[in-house]
């Protein structure tokens, strides 16, 4: 009964649209074993830096390594929590302030597994995926995003 999973693309060019999220949610209505979904969305913030105000983030990635790593993370999380589904989408290229750059979506029979898995996925995505955000400022300057 075990499904063999293979690496999937997680990258989306530009921002992630609310419509994509709605569609992804709607796709799960046929799986009537699901009782809870947990979703995390990252949104680009207009931070004030000493060098200027953030107006967008330009994301780049070492894509091949990121996809291998994302697969490894997926497998570890599937092994740890009784999940029905797991989806990860991360933007590449320019995402303006107020737009969405990360969409993590977990589903399970009972809520706890979905919630805990979603939290852990977000932490691991931020810590372990070779992705970089260049924060574009309103001063024509830029700074490199630092994850805390």
């Amino acid at each position, binding site marked *: 009964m075990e499904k063999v999973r293979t690496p999937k693309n997680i990258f989306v060019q530009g921002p992630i649209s609310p419509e994509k999220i709605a569609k992804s949610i709607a796709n799960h209505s046929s799986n009537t074993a699901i009782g809870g979904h947990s979703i995390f969305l990252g949104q680009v913030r207009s931070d004030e830096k000493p060098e200027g105000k953030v107006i967008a983030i330009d994301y780049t990635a*070492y894509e091949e*390594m990121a996809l291998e790593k994302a697969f490894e993370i997926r497998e570890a999380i599937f092994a740890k929590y009784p999940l029905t589904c797991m989806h990860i989408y991360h933007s590449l290229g320019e995402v303006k302030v107020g737009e969405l750059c990360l969409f993590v979506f977990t589903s399970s029979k009972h809520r706890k597994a979905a919630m805990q898995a979603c939290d852990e996925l977000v932490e691991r995505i*931020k810590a372990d*995926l*070779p*992705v*970089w*955000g260049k924060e574009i400022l309103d001063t024509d300057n830029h700074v*490199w995003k630092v*994850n805390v």
Partner: protein
Amino acid sequence: MPNTIHIKAFGMVAEKIGLAELVIDYSGDSSELLEVLLVKFPVLKSVKFSLAINKKLVSGNQEIPSGAEIALLPPFSGG
């Protein structure tokens, strides 16, 4: 016998050295490669970065297989 190795640079590292890719002939391990890179690109002394060999992060010192793909990775900042 020198290997041909492909080096990819990302994010702030690529910006500092002004290159996203380079190919060099090189023989040695990963620690020696780091020294070579710091001589070639002194600006890297002020940048924090890790090495990956064939898409795996290097911890400590490692051999570099023939035809390896090396990556210079500044701290990740996805999400």
